[in-house]
């Protein structure tokens, strides 16, 4: 068993705006590309040109269809990755101490040197956020791009997770939830940011902004200039052009 820190100085995480996410998968492959050559073992692909390709991804986008009783059906695109929970069951379940939550920023990481690939953490995570890499035999998960966000070899503007940097609609936001004035804290407060499955007590850090209410356009139908049946086109023309004198 591995222990969690009582508290962390920062609480770094993501706000993902479900009202804006179009499900384009850009975050998925930007994540794959960066982390394939970033922290820890590469993200391998098995049988990539074969009948059943499968590989390791730290972030996947799912689409859900919702069919309300009284409104038009909608589709919600939902990117899913590690939520960097305050009470992360994947950490406490780890038999070797490989899974840990960083005290300085709250990022949940896997120390691959200590990981034995037992898979207990993936079983413990209720969000399905961990994937065992079939080639390396170690557990992989979102690192919040820990090797980007502090990286002095990158220009300051690029020190953010690869998924956030690439998101074409700007639906992904990165920041410190411990700071109530941060961009992510305020955005979450303004738009009703939700934790996923809070009833499980995992205390996720990441927040999802719910889709705004759809199909509610209200406008009073336009009043006709006049009764065109009665006045004819000539009447309409007079009235219309009279408007500009």
């Amino acid at each position: 068993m591995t222990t969690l820190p009582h508290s962390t100085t920062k609480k770094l995480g993501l706000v993902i705006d479900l009202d804006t996410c179009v499900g384009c998968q850009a975050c998925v492959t930007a994540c794959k590309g960066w982390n394939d050559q970033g922290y820890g073992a590469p993200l391998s692909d098995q049988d990539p040109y074969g009948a059943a390709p499968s590989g390791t991804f730290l972030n996947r986008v799912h689409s859900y269809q919702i069919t309300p009783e009284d409104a038009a059906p909608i589709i919600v695109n939902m990117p899913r990755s590690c939520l960097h929970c305050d009470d992360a069951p994947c950490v406490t379940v780890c038999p070797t101490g490989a899974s840990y939550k960083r005290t300085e920023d709250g990022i949940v990481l896997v120390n691959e040197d200590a990981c034995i690939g037992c898979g207990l953490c993936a079983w413990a995570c209720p969000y399905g956020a961990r994937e065992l890499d079939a080639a390396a035999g170690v557990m992989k998960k979102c690192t919040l791009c820990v090797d980007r966000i502090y990286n002095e070899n990158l220009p300051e503007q690029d020190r953010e997770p690869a998924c956030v940097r690439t998101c074409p609609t700007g639906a992904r936001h990165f920041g410190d939830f411990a700071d109530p004035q941060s961009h992510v804290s305020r955005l979450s407060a303004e738009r009703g940011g939700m934790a996923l499955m809070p009833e499980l007590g995992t205390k996720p850090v990441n927040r999802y902004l719910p889709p705004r209410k759809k199909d509610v356009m209200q406008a009073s139908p336009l009043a006709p200039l006049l009764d065109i049946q009665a006045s004819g086109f000539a009447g309409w023309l007079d009235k219309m052009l009279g408007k500009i004198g």
Partner: protein
Amino acid sequence: MNQPRIDLSPHVSDEIRKTTCYMCACRCGIDVHLTSGKVTYIEGNKDHPVNKGVLCAKGASGIMQVTAPSRLRAPLRRVGPRGSGAFEEISWEEALGLATAWMKPLRETAPEKLAFFTGRDQSQSFTGWWAQQFGTPNYAAHGGFCSVNMAAGGIYTLGGAFWEFGQPDWDRTKLFVMFGVAEDHDSNPIKIGLGKLKERGARVVGVNPIRTGYNAVADDWYGITPGTDGLLILSLIHCLLAAGKIDLAYLARFTNAPLLVNETDGPEKGLIVKNAESQPFVIDKRTGKPAPWDGQGVQPDLGAVWQGHRTVFQHMAERYLSADYAPEQVAERCGISANRIRILAAELARVAFDEAIEIDQPWTDFRGDLHEKMTGRPVSFHAMRGISAHSNGFQTARALHLLQIVLGTVEVPGGYRFKPPYPKPVEAHPTPHFVSVPGKPLSGPHLGYVRSPEQLALLPDGSPARIDKAFSWENPFSAHGMMHMVIPNAHAGDPYRIDTLFLYMANIAWNSSMNTAQVMAMLTDKTAEGDYVIPRIIYSDAYASEMVAYADLILPDTTYLERHDCISLLDRPISEPGAAGDSIRWPVVTPDRPGHEGVRGFQSVLLDLGVRLGLPGMTNPDGSAKFKDYADYIVNHIRRPGVGPLIGFRGAGGDLEGRGEANPDQMQAYIDNGGFYQAHVPQEALFYKPWNKAYQDWAVATSFYESPQPYLFNIWSEPMRRFQLAAEGQGFLQPPDHLRAQIRQTMDPLPIWYPPFGEAAEAEYPLHALTQRPMDMYHSWGTQNAWLRQIRGKNFLYVPTKVWKQHGFDEGDYARVTSPNGQIVVPVAHMAALNSETVWTWNAIGKRKGAWALDEGATEATEGFLLNHLISELLPEKGDGLRYSNSDPVTGQAAWFDLRVKLERVGKRDHSEPVFAPVSRPVPKGEGRT
């Protein structure tokens, strides 16, 4: 607790090289990271005007494309029957010698027997120029089956359309309405724009039968029935007119609404009334008398009647005020309730007129009148293939532009804005050139905008001059050619036979044909003498696509990171509303196919062939090459005095913009600048461009026009009316009798709606069937990508709830899908957020076994499928012995969204049908990642 120490600042890469993405047609700037000479990471270029640092799923997966096992490695000569895929590798010298031996006699005797068509080509100003030097009239790219309706509808009406032509004012618009937008088009710019609207809380409305992607985030979804967008739009115009919610000042000043329509029976009827100097004129409200259309201080009278001739405005208003366009009349057909149509019209009016904005920027119009401010109506629109790919698409695009015009939202703050070199009126475009003379170049560019029957590409006997019959009476305004008709027409010998079909980057034996199986049969069909009906086929592609097997000679191209390219203002540039822009690609890695002859950039190969053929423009008088390669051409080719492919860093000193001599260091200057260049539009010229004196002057200085070209938007299209007149029997040039009725109907000078031709099959085939490309795939290139195929390696036919229940479908079921042209058996899935009369699937996921270096058991090749087998290049026979293309009758746009089908449940299967025999592999099957 001891945390491990980790390196928070690891080395990122040895070097970043900035070039232009080509994972789709969007042309984003990319930072390619290299470590030890290998590509290790690709991300968006933050300084780039197209994507501003972001990058889509395809772009970041480009790293898998440069190492794809499907990459071709050497020129190939066919050794087995055509279609078998049996090839031998040959040297470049042999390959180029062979191509020259085939093409040279054609040029000397009958240049039209070479048909050169390029698919997803981003070098059309170069490939078109090459074809022009060869002298064949038979050249075009893929626009005819892509979105020519949108492009041409825009040019003929506004002098610009969407995507490269213009875009919404994302920073100011408050209501954005998109019609039929394919999610792959203008990919990152639209996503960035939607993100801006969402951030500001602006309203997004999606009009689309399918609620995925952009429509999934739309605040309001109008799940319209396919092919009826034009009817909905004209109904919105009806509502606006009836309520008087139109921008009269805008209509009077900037459109042809105040011009007079000739009412006198005879050859001029319906044309714009002209004065003795052949100029149109208006009636000045101050005097009640005729006045120049562009005269200073003139106040055009929309309500004028002069010598019995009424204004365009009156014709327009009278037509759309008709009860035929009332929401209650169109609701059922469109699948949208009358109430919702009225609400949308009211919201358009409210935002356009009640939330108008003003920018404190004085400007002077073309009449010389000074305006203190720029008034904006913050409503904007975007539309793409959902409108385009129907046989009523041109008129529907015109209707959408008319809606923008009556709201006064074009080229105003908050509305739709042109991107330089647009606006460009139809009169400023070339007309088609098609007269071929053995041994001589064509007298001008192939493609253009026809204004009257005299400009059609017809031979003296009245038959079409082009193999695709573009610019013929059947489709007079086919401004992008009709690539989809080349093979069917060449096979039928209608209008004539060809010798060599030369294709670039067009997977025409698979997903880039309307009917794949028929096209494969045409490519392999033989004459009674045992020769192929299409005698020779040369193809250039970078990958082992399905088309490779159908060529006699393969000229292997490089991948996009291994080549020079030029995204030119002469072609489809990367401009923004506030800046003209162009860009390059350059070889950030060296093409490397160890143990094989290697690959060459296609454009350099064309130049080499050009010298071997002795083509003017690329050959010196002594027969030597004028350009070393394509990079040399990009820098040194002069199209008009001072104007070349790139506008930046011109002149000997590299400090001239737009016009200037060639600069030998220009390519390096582009590389140093991040791969692109922008020429910024001056502040006072940012809006009202067609009429803004400052913009017109800047456009001349920057080389887009030779003189200022102010113009009026064409609500009434005189070129269309000229064709209608011909169909009515006026004029010397007359259409064939079997096309008269069609021309009279479809060449209406005011936007109209008519049912798509596919509706003829409605009784037996109750459902509409559509395709769209996902945001994470592009054509067939994407599905071979090791990462992207894991995201979407299989496609389903999505079925709406009503139809799902009616057929008793279960999860895992297959359905037989039948159209008037054929049938397929494919996996189905339920989708509620879908128009109730429509089924659809993702395009180009299905693959042929043996192609693309994929395993024969790949889901793309077993369960994946194409709808193409259900479509045909031709309409069903009408019993008159004539062949009618399945295209828009105005532009020739392939009408593949007209498709109608019926379904039948067949239960569980593990394989889609039809099944084709595997093709032999020109490259080995891919194994692990390299």
